[in-house]
C-alpha cells in the first residue's frame, strides 16, 4: 500500500545514544613525556655515571690505603732492624807470652801486638761496612716516608674528588626534585622494605597473602620469588601489609 499523503515524521526521542558522536578526549599523558622525559633521562644517565665514578674512586682509595699500610709496616721493620743492629765486638785482650823463654815471649808478644793490630784494622774495616749499610737503611727509610706522604696526598685528593662528586649528586637530586615536586610517596615503604631484601616475607594483598623471598624493590613495585621459583611482581599500591 502506498502512502499518498501524511505528516512528515518528527522524532520525539532524539538521536540514539550509540549514534551520537563521542568527543575524543586527549589521551592522558604521564608527567614524564616530551621535554620532561628527556631531562629525566639525561639526569638519570648523569646519576648512573656519577655512581660509577664514585665506585671507582672508592676502589682506588681502598687500594691506596692497602699500599700505605704495607709501606708503613716495611718502614717500621726497617726502623726495628737499624735499632737492633749489634755493636762491633771489643778487641780481644791478648796477654804477651810468659814462662819459658823471654825471647820467645817477646816474639809471641810482638806477634800478639801485630795480631791485635790486624784485628783492629779488620774491625775498623768491618765497622765501616756496617755504617754504610746503616746509612743506606736510613736513606731508604726517608725515601719510603716520602713515598707514603705522596700516597697520602693522593688519597686526600681522591677523597676530595669523592666529596665533590657527592655534592654534585645532591645538586642534581635537588634539580630533579624541582621537576618531580616533593619526595616520592613510596619512600616510607621503600625504607621499610630495604632492610628486608633477600629475606622471607609475607605480603598481604586484596587477593590474598604472598609468601616468598624479597629480591628487588623497584620505583613502584616489589619483586618476590616464591618457594617454587615463580616470580611475583606486586605494585606498591596493592600492598596491604608486610610481615
Amino acid at each position, binding site marked *: 500500500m502506498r502512502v499518498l499523503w501524511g505528516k512528515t515524521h518528527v522524532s520525539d526521542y532524539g538521536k540514539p545514544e550509540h549514534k551520537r558522536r563521542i568527543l575524543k578526549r586527549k589521551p592522558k599523558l*604521564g608527567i614524564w613525556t616530551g621535554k620532561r622525559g628527556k631531562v629525566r633521562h639525561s639526569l638519570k644517565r648523569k646519576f648512573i655515571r656519577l655512581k660509577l665514578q664514585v665506585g671507582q674512586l672508592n676502589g682506588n682509595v681502598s687500594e691506596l690505603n692497602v699500599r700505605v699500610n704495607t709501606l708503613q709496616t716495611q718502614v717500621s721493620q726497617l726502623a726495628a732492624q737499624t735499632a737492633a743492629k749489634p755493636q762491633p765486638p771489643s778487641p780481644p785482650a791478648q796477654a804477651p807470652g810468659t814462662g819459658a823463654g823471654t825471647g820467645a815471649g817477646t816474639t809471641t808478644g810482638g806477634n800478639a801486638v801485630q795480631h791485635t793490630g790486624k784485628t783492629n784494622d779488620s774491625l775498623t774495616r768491618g765497622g765501616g761496612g756496617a755504617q754504610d749499610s746503616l746509612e743506606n737503611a736510613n736513606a731508604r727509610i726517608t725515601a719510603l716516608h716520602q713515598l707514603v706522604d705522596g700516597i697520602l696526598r693522593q688519597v686526600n685528593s681522591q677523597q676530595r674528588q669523592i666529596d665533590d662528586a657527592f655534592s654534585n649528586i645532591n645538586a642534581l637530586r635537588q634539580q630533579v626534585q624541582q621537576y618531580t615536586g616533593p619526595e616520592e610517596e613510596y619512600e616510607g615503604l621503600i625504607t621499610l622494605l630495604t632492610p628486608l631484601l633477600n629475606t622471607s616475607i609475607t605480603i598481604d*594483598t*586484596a*587477593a590474598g597473602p*604472598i609468601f616468598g623471598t624479597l629480591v*628487588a624493590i*623497584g*620505583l*613502584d*613495585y616489589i*619483586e618476590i620469588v*616464591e618457594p*617454587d*621459583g*615463580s*616470580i*611475583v*611482581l*606486586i*605494585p606498591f*599500591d*596493592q600492598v596491604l601489609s608486610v610481615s
Partner: protein
Amino acid sequence: MDFEQRLSAFIGRSIEVIFTNQFLQGQILNVFDETFVVQAESSNYIPEPRQVTVVSNNVIFVRIPQ
C-alpha cells in the same frame, strides 16, 4: 625501574595476572606506559582465547611461573 619496565623484561613469557575479582593467564605480548597486552587463554573468566589490554593500576599482582 618501574613496574612496566620490569614487566617488559618478561614479554613473550607466560604470566598470571590477578585482579580483585578476576584471574587472567596467558602470554605477555606488549607493555605500554600504563597498560600491557596479554594473549589470554580460555578460562572460567574468559571463555575464548583473546587479547586483553590490562590497566596496570588495577592489577593486584602478577606472577611469572618458572
